[in-house]
C-alpha cells in the first residue's frame, strides 16, 4: 500500500504556466526513490509539496490515504515527514545532539552513532564538523523524528565522491532496513543507480525512467 500518493497534482508560481502538470504517483514504504530532472524543472517544488511546505495549485496529496491539507500541513511535517537538505540546514549554535533532539521522538545518541559520528563529534558545535559529518547529523535528525517518509533534496550535492557514497548507503539502509519511504531529488546518476525506483521529471510530467 502506498504511503504517499499524488493525484492530479498541478503547480504554478504565477497562475499562468504550470511547473507541474497533472502528476499522479504513488510511493511506498521500504523503497528508495530517486527523482531526476534538469535544473528548474520543478524537482524541489515537488518535494516541497510532498513535505507540506507548499500547497499544490490543483490536485491532492495523500498520506496514508488522507489528504495532507486536511491533516494540517504543520502537523504533516511534524509527524509524517523528515527533510534532508543539500545545505544540511542544521541550527548553527547547537551541537549535533541538540540538533537531533529538536524534533526527536527517539533517543538521539544511538542514532548519531548509527550514522557514524563519534562521541567527541557529537559534542562539538555543528559548524566545526565537515560537510559529510553535518549531513550525517541531518540524516540522524530525520531518523530521530521517526517519520515514515524521508525527503532529501540533493543530499550529496555538496559532498565528495566517497562521502556521497557513504551517505547514499545510509539512505538506502533507511529505506530497506528501517522501512522508510526515502525520496531523493538528485542530479547524481551514481545515486540514482542505487535507487529502487527512478522517476524522471520532464516538462512538468513525472515518469518512471
Amino acid at each position, binding site marked *: 500500500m502506498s504511503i504517499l500518493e499524488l493525484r492530479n497534482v498541478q503547480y504554478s508560481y504565477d497562475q499562468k504556466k504550470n511547473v507541474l502538470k497533472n502528476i499522479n504517483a504513488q510511493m511506498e514504504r521500504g523503497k528508495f526513490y530517486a527523482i531526476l530532472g534538469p535544473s528548474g524543472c520543478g524537482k524541489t517544488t515537488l518535494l516541497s509539496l510532498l513535505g507540506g511546505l507548499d500547497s499544490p495549485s490543483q490536485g491532492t496529496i495523500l498520506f496514508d490515504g488522507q489528504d495532507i491539507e486536511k491533516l494540517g500541513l504543520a*502537523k504533516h511535517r511534524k509527524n509524517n515527514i523528515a527533510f534532508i537538505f543539500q545545505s544540511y540546514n542544521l541550527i548553527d549554535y547547537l551541537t549535533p545532539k541538540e540538533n537531533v533532539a529538536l524534533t526527536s521522538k527517539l533517543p538521539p545518541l544511538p542514532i548519531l552513532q548509527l550514522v557514524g559520528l563519534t562521541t567527541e563529534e557529537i559534542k562539538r558545535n555543528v559548524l566545526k564538523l565537515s560537510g559529510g559529518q553535518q549531513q550525517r547529523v541531518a540524516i540522524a535528525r530525520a531518523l530521530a523524528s521517526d517519520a515514515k517518509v524521508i525527503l532529501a533534496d540533493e543530499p550529496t550535492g555538496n559532498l565528495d565522491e566517497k562521502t556521497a557514497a557513504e551517505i547514499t548507503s545510509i539512505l538506502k539502509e533507511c529505506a530497506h532496513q528501517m522501512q522508510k519511504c526515502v525520496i531523493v531529488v538528485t542530479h547524481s546518476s551514481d545515486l540514482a543507480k542505487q535507487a529502487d525506483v527512478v522517476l524522471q521529471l520532464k516538462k512538468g510530467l513525472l515518469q518512471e525512467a
Partner: protein
Amino acid sequence: MSVLKRAGLYVMKNTGRSLLLFAILALTAAFVLSGLSIMNASVNTSARLRGTTGASFTVERNLSTGSLNSIGGGTSIIQQEFVTDAMIKDILKTDGIRAYTAKSGASLALRDLSGNLLRVIYENPKWDGTDLDYQLNAIGSFFSEYDKLFLSQSFLLTQGRHITDQDDHCIIISEALAKKHGLSVGDKVELYRQNWTTGMANAGDEGAEVEIVGLFKIIESQDDKNSRAPFYLYENYMFVSMNTVKSLSDWVDDAAERKGYEYADFYVDDPEQLETIIQNVQKLGSINWNNFNITVNDEVYKRAAGSMSNAASLIRTLIIVIVVISAGMVALILSLWLKGRIRETGILMAMGISKPALLLQHVIESALIAVPAFCAAWLISQGTVGWMAGLFDSAMETEYLAISGADFMTVCIGGIWILLTAILISCISVFRYKPKSILSMME
C-alpha cells in the same frame, strides 16, 4: 524538545546577544526607575512644601495713614492702631489658615529659683557692670515654630518642643545660655521684668516662674559680635509664651497706648490658596483696612516649588526620551536578530514546529532575559537612588527618594509590552511567508 528548552538553549548559546539585550533592558529600566523615583520625590516634596514652607501673609500697621502726635521737644510720633487679639481671632476664622504668630519684644531677665540673676553671654568686657549684664531679648510668641528666626533656619530647635498659643509660663533659650548656667529642658526659672528706670537692683518686683520647654542651637553666625550689645546677640535671645510676656511687660515702653502688636503673621495650609485667603481676609468688615497693610510672604515656597517643578519636568522629559530611544533600540535589535534567524525559522518550520510555537519561543527567550534584567534594574536603581539621596540631600526630601513597587511594576509591564510588540512586528514580517518561501530565502 519543549519550547522552553529551545528558548533556554538559544539564550545560553548566544551569550553575546543575550548579554547585550540584558544590559540594554537592565540599564534602561534602572534609569527609568531612578527617574520615576526622583520625579515622585520632587512631587512629594512639592506637596510637602505646600504645607511646610511657611507661606504666609503679614498684617501690619499702616504707618503712612497714621496721625502725627507731638510728644514735646519738637518730636512727634506716628499714631496708628495696633494689630489686636480680637483682630487675630477674626482673621483666624478664615478658612485655610493653620497657624499664626505675632511678635512682642521685651527686655526681660532670668533668675534661678534661689534668686540669683543669670548673667547673659558676651565677650566684650565693656558691658561689664552695665544694665545690659542681665538683659535677655525676650520674644513673645504664639507659635515659636513660625518665628522668622526658626523659619529661616537661623535657629534650630535641638531639644524639647516649640511654644504654642496654648502655652503659658514657657520659655525656649539658647543652648549656650543653658550650658552657661547648667540649665536643661524641664528646669524652672524665674522670669523678671527689667526695670529700666531703677536699674537691675530693683528687678524682681514683677516676675513669673517659667519652665524651659526647649533649647535652640544657633545656625546662622552673627557678624561683628564684639561690637553688638549683649541684648542683640543670638545667644541671649529667648522665646516666651505670649501670655507670659503680656502679663510681665505689658509693652513696657508705651504701655498706655499700646494694646496690640506691630504685626501678625498668618500661615496658610496651601500656598497655592494664599491669594484667595488674603482676598477673604480683606473682606472682614470688623477691620479698618485703611489702617493696615497686608504683605505676602511666599518667596521661599515659590522658589522651592519652582525648582521642584523644573526638576520634575526635566526628569519627565528625560524619561520619555530615554524610553522612546530604548524602545526603538530594543525593537530594532530584536527585529534585526529575528530577521537574522530566518534560516532557523525555516528549519524549525520544516520540522513541523508551528508559527505560534515559534512566536512563543521568541517570547520566552525575551522573558528569560527580561526577568533577570528587571531584577538587576531594581538593584541598580536602589544603588543609584541611594547615591542620589546624598546628591539631592538639600534640594528635596530624600526620604521620598525610593523605588516603589508600583513604579517597578509599571516599568516591568512597559518593558514587556515593548518586547512583545517588537517580537510580534518582527515575526509578522517573517511568518507571512510560506515555509517553502522561507527555505528558498535561506538558499
